[in-house]
């Protein structure tokens, strides 16, 4: 096994190996992929390179770099050793050739779309999505002459109908936030290929533990690495995974726009990824158990969780995903928004906060947290109901979470 095969961003966990070498376990990649076997100072872990710039020993050394005869770092905005190793790890986990890391998930999607779209181009979006992604496309890409067409989530006929010769990208989350609708990635990728349109999946809620969209033919995978990848609610980061060729222009634009992450953060992200598989197993287990508990509770009217047969997209989720993550959305029976708030306030273990995917459970009411300033008509359009609560199950013991929710539901 050649550890160096995974030590740069252009190699994934298998591409450098002969077909005879079996794919390594996910935790093996979590711990080792992307990192050099022998590190500076013989350290077991990657040193944190705070350097903003990197020195050349001589003009001859500089010329060698400028003329493309050597690969090395130059200036922090163009690259950093901590960035290289964590990008290598993310690419290996997502079965992608390459990954590009950004300062946040939004910086990642903006970085990709700004690199790929020109005035006059169009994108087609499934309508259930993170409200800031929607806002960026509808409000800001529009200022640059890019048209966003939204079609109902999962309606592939509507998506195909919206494609024309100006369409450059099909975009969806899977599962979506907060309705947890899972998209058939095989069909999604096939439509893109048939129309020669690139495809992007925001797989933040799924994570590569549960599905690797590249393996289903999707071109780009987006992660808010702030969530499960970092996993400890203590850093912001975003990532785009894809082929080296497709990402070349994206990487170049990041160097110009500068939405890079910091070496300290990148180290914490790398450290968080070491326990990625364990954390995801627990998030999946807690998500499933808590969803089942909620589904059987008399005060709960509806539970949105891909692992429950009652979810409209359960069948596709079960056929394509290994597990369903820790995010659950549910609606309280016969409750107005204040009654739902009382349940949120009564929960003792989950804390009230936006975000998800960390070891600590978080709870929020989408109406109050993200959609408070929307009109009732818009909220209805986006499927945000007054009695809706979103819970991000952490990795606490599920018995504790269930006992806490049981008491909170009495509020």
């Amino acid at each position, binding site marked *: 096994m050649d550890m160096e095969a995974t030590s740069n961003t252009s190699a994934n966990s298998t591409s450098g190996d002969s077909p005879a070498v079996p794919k390594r*376990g996910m935790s093996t990649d979590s711990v080792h992929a992307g990192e050099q*076997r022998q590190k500076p100072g013989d350290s077991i872990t990657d040193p944190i390179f705070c350097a903003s710039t990197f020195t050349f020993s001589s003009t001859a050394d500089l010329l060698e770099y400028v003329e493309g005869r050597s690969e090395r770092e130059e200036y922090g905005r163009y690259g950093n050793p901590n960035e290289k190793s964590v990008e290598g790890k993310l690419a290996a986990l997502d079965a992608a050739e390459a990954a590009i890391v950004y300062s946040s998930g939004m910086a990642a999607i903006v970085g990709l779309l700004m690199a790929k779209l020109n005035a006059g181009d169009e994108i087609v979006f499934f309508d259930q999505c993170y409200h800031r992604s929607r806002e960026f496309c509808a409000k800001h890409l529009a200022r640059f002459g890019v048209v966003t067409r939204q079609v109902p989530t999962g309606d592939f006929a509507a998506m195909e109908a919206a494609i024309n010769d100006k369409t450059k990208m099909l975009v969806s989350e899977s599962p979506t936030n907060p309705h947890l609708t899972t998209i058939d990635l095989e069909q999604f990728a096939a439509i893109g290929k048939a129309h020669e349109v690139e495809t992007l999946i925001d797989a933040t809620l799924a994570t590569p533990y549960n599905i690797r969209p590249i393996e289903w033919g999707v071109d780009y995978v987006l992660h808010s690495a702030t969530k499960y990848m970092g996993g400890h609610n203590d850093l912001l980061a975003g990532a785009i995974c894809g082929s080296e060729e497709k990402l070349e222009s994206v990487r170049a634009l990041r160097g110009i726009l500068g939405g890079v992450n910091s070496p300290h953060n990148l180290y914490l992200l790398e450290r968080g990824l070491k*326990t990625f598989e*364990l954390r995801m197993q627990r998030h999946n287990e807690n998500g499933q158990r808590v969803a089942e508990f909620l589904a059987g509770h008399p005060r709960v009217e509806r539970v949105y969780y891909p692992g429950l047969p009652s979810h409209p997209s359960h069948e596709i989720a079960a056929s394509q995903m290994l597990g369903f993550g820790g995010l659950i959305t549910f609606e309280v029976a016969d409750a107005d928004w204040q009654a739902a708030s009382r349940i949120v306030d009564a929960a*003792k273990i989950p804390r009230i906060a936006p975000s998800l995917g*960390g070891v*600590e459970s978080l709870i929020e009411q989408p109406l109050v947290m993200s959609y408070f300033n929307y009109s009732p008509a818009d909220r209805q359009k986006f499927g945000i109901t007054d009695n809706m609560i979103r819970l991000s199950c952490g*990795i606490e*013991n599920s018995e504790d979470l269930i006992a806490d929710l049981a008491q909170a539901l009495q509020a």
Partner: protein
Amino acid sequence: MSESPSKSLQFRTRAIHVGNEVDPQTGAVVPPIHLASTFRQPGAGKWGEFDYSRSGNPTRSGLQRTLASLEGGCGALAFSSGMAAIHGVTMLLESGQHVVAGSDIYGGAYRLLHKICNRAGIEVTLVDMTDLDAVAAAIRPETKLLWGETIGNPLLTIPDLRGLSAIARSAGVLFGVDNTFGTPALVRPLEHGVDIVMHSATKYLGGHSDCLGGTLAVADEELFDRLYYVQNATGAVLDPLSSFLVSRGLKTLDLRVREQSRTAQQLAEWLEQHRQVKHVLYPGLPSHPQHLRAKEQFDGFGAMLCFELEGDFQQTARVCEATELFHLAVSLGAVESLIEQPASMSHASYDPADRERFGIRDGLIRLSVGLEAAADLQADLAQAIDRGMAG
């Protein structure tokens, strides 16, 4: 969480929440890292909760509260290294006093007791901690400390914690154990009557090979005050950044240790069948002399294992050098698997005669099983043994 979670919450939930209460000023879900060396006071001669970071620091204090909860103690202290923590314990002793310690304790503890404490006129007797009669016989009137390990290093012996506690109690001797190999996820010595539980937090508690640290936890307020006095007076405190990293590590401690133990069990069973392996030392194997005690005392068998090759010093060294996943390094307990030869590395500070006496032979290899997939680790060991033994 608005109120501090009660003791009724399970281990993993407490590891995440106790000591990590939301910052009241900003609502930050992860407490801020307080790098401040000093703290502004309410008035001249009036002292706030924190005054100077050696005496107390909010980040270290949060970690200490988590540790106290996980150990089931009344308080915990975080030191700059595991050795600093053990040194803190030995500083409770005075000239003319005597220590009884286990015969397969960590080499650094051996060195502290034999080469540093002796300068203060403190004597040490090493005994097999699995032999209660030998321990009782070694205790003298001037004995003030009994020091052992919940899982011995490197021979992975398992002492009877309750039996030793009873001996120590009746002799009026403090009983301290190094629980580094056991971790509070698998065994909480304070529940077995031990007075002081110590950890090298560098290992499983931090868990990522990226910080040094040591901890002490106790169940007795008066003993806590004495140890705190020593720590504050001598100053080997854990820095705020490392305190943060250990706190972050504790959140996945339970998951890591259980997964690593599962893999270690699998590797131990496989090694026991390997034709070039003389024997395997792992508490989870029925062949381990204290297997039944481990089963009764622990919630799992840990992720450290030793095996002795049918090979000489050179062959053993070559096997350690031939691995491609296991890193050749001392230390242990992290996500990366490590391999080492105790005779030339972790226990090189033992006198050769003591190494021989305590069974730390040249063919012995110690593994710290990490988080990698078990199949990958087994394949790596198989090829390393083949290459090392053939050379």
